[in-house]
């Protein structure tokens, strides 16, 4: 059974991720008073990318993308999806934290190899933004791990399902709020979209990707959205008994992200990092202090 | 011809100071000064002192029949230069910001064979790009101009393109129509 699930979970993640991309484009169109593309438009685009000729800038150009996508797939294996988690026993939350840095590192390496300043500027912005949201994110994750006194994600999810999700139990509600404030940054949504800004730096790190490479990048984008949302639901919203409820919770989180995405202009990197290091970090820091003092 | 005092006063002053210029006022009250090549800079600096401190643009006209090229300086002022009624008829004091400001034309004629004149950059620094453009498109040489390098055009033209004797249709035939269409059969 586990082997079946090992193969199935990346495919499910891809399907859900692509559905989310199609849905977000349609919702954004509706907000602009437009009809918007059909829900399966990302699928069409990926298929078109794979039929086009790809111009490659060297071995590392392809290797970087393959590395980042493999990193995302492995992270998905570690994430419980509604009660089912295939690789729960080999490292827990620390490995997830570390594997999540493989995806941006892979894209950074292949973007750098593309020898285009647009890509390099996009990558440096991506790494600075990541440094921005890592501080509050680590505070949140450490508060949750110290509160439940384990480093394995599956234990956290099961603990939260018995007692109450993070939003309910007192000290963790601050971490939940802080996580909500930094979620658009982790998903790369509009207020923090400066990394892939199509107008200023012609879509940043992926400026030089064409054909199959661009197809892989779209799949990577779908998987990262899936990972970001499912991590939120697992850590703070208590996961779910069966996959369907888990999917509904993810839809709610996506909706929140989309409405924030539609309402905000694009922040510069400095403003984004200054914001991330001010309010979310303060709330998460207070949350951690409470967890530590109450926990003693 | 509403001989508004502003133009009249200035006209008298200019006539008295300069010998070799004629000034006339067009029907809508705009003063036009025709100066010789030598005196054009002195007139410019005098007008600048008088308050016409904004050189709107420097233009050029190719009088091919009289075999002359005419450089036109269009001047205007930010503040009212003389006392007198403004557009709505109320009296305005000298120095009022929203006073009626006519622009003044200062024209000078150059021989068409090899037109050259002193640059106006020392009086109006913002004349530099206009003179550069005129040099490139009309072939007028401005002595003392820091950089008369090409501004728009990316290739050499035997006759400067804006001159009337530049036959554009012929040029298009030579350069663009001579390019063969792609024949698909080969």
């Amino acid at each position, binding site marked *: 059974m586990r082997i079946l699930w090992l193969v199935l979970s990346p495919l499910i993640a891809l399907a859900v991720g692509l559905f989310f991309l199609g849905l977000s484009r349609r919702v954004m169109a509706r907000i602009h008073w437009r009809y918007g593309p059909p829900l399966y*438009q990302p699928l069409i685009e990926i298929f078109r990318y794979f039929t086009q000729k790809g111009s490659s800038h060297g071995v590392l150009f392809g290797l970087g993308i393959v590395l980042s996508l493999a990193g995302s797939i492995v992270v998905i294996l570690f994430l419980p999806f509604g009660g089912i988690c295939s690789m729960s026993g080999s490292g827990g939350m620390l490995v997830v934290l570390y594997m999540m840095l493989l995806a941006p590192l892979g894209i950074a390496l292949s973007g750098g190899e593309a020898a285009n300043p647009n890509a390099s500027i996009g990558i440096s912005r991506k790494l600075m933004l990541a440094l921005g949201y890592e501080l509050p994110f680590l505070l949140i994750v450490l508060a949750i791990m110290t509160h439940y006194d384990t480093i394995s994600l599956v234990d956290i999810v099961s603990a939260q399902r018995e007692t109450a999700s993070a939003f309910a139990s007192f000290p963790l509600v601050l971490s939940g709020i802080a996580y909500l404030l930094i979620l658009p940054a982790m998903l790369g949504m509009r207020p923090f979209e400066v990394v892939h800004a199509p107008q200023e730096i012609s879509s940043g790190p992926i400026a030089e990707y064409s054909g199959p490479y661009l197809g892989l990048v779209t799949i990577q984008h779908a998987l990262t959205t899936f990972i970001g949302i499912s991590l939120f639901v697992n850590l703070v919203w208590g996961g779910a008994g069966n996959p369907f409820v888990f999917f509904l919770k993810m839809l709610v989180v996506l909706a929140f992200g989309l409405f924030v995405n539609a309402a905000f202009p694009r922040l510069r990197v400095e403003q984004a990092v200054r914001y991330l290091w001010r309010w979310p970090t303060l709330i998460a820091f207070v949350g951690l202090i409470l967890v530590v003092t109450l926990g003693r | 011809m509403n001989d508004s005092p502003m133009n009249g006063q200035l006209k008298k002053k200019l006539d008295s100071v300069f010998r070799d210029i004629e000034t006339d006022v067009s029907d809508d009250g705009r003063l036009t000064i025709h100066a010789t090549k030598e005196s054009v800079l002195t007139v410019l600096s005098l007008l600048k002192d008088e308050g016409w401190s904004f050189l709107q643009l420097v233009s050029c006209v190719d009088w091919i029949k009289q075999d002359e090229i005419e450089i036109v300086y269009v001047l205007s002022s930010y503040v009212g230069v003389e006392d007198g009624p403004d557009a709505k008829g109320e009296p305005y004091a000298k120095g009022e910001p929203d006073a009626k400001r006519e622009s003044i034309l200062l024209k000078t004629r150059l021989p068409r064979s090899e037109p050259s004149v002193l640059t106006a950059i020392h009086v109006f620094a913002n004349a530099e790009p206009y003179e550069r453009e005129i040099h490139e498109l009309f072939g007028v040489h401005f002595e003392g101009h820091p950089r008369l390098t090409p501004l728009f055009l990316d290739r050499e033209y035997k006759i400067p393109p804006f001159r009337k004797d530049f036959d554009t249709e012929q040029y298009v035939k030579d350069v663009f129509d001579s390019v063969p269409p792609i024949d698909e059969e080969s």
Partner: protein
Amino acid sequence: MDRNQLTKWFKAPTKMAHKYSLHAVYFCTGCGVIEIPPTITARWDAERFGVIPAATPRHANLFLITGYVSVKTLRAVIRTYEQMPEPKFTVGFGSCPINGGMYWDSYNTINQLDKYIPIDGWIAGCMPRPEAIFVAVTHLWTLIDKDMADGYKRYRKHYAQYRANQEQVLGELEWPPLFQSEREG
């Protein structure tokens, strides 16, 4: 609009995929560019046909040349066209790329864009309206269906002539030829 006919998807998936995800290069030449924003925003919404502006030519497969092409812009047009990945389609927008339009006798505007890069479709009119773009897109669909939108194949086949014409007008080009003539036939 046969996007939801599954049989077509199985018969010719590549053509269908290209038909319903035409990403137009965000390249603005001449006066026609003012027609693009209303086309992609609420009033006409090109996204319902899958047409969205692409950030770089690398992401695109539709090149909309909107308006007159001056000699200097031709250099950028050729460069962008060559950077687009293969199956790519070009549409000349407005009368100026067709025959120079009102700039037919201008010393710095090229008359027939067709001599320098292959064009698959034309939209006549001195700045055609957004509906005309949709007509062009639908025509492009039929061309793709009939394999007649083969601009990029013609470019590859007669690259020597195209390159010669480009060099005749622009003089020496800073980038090497896209296809080595003896290798590509």
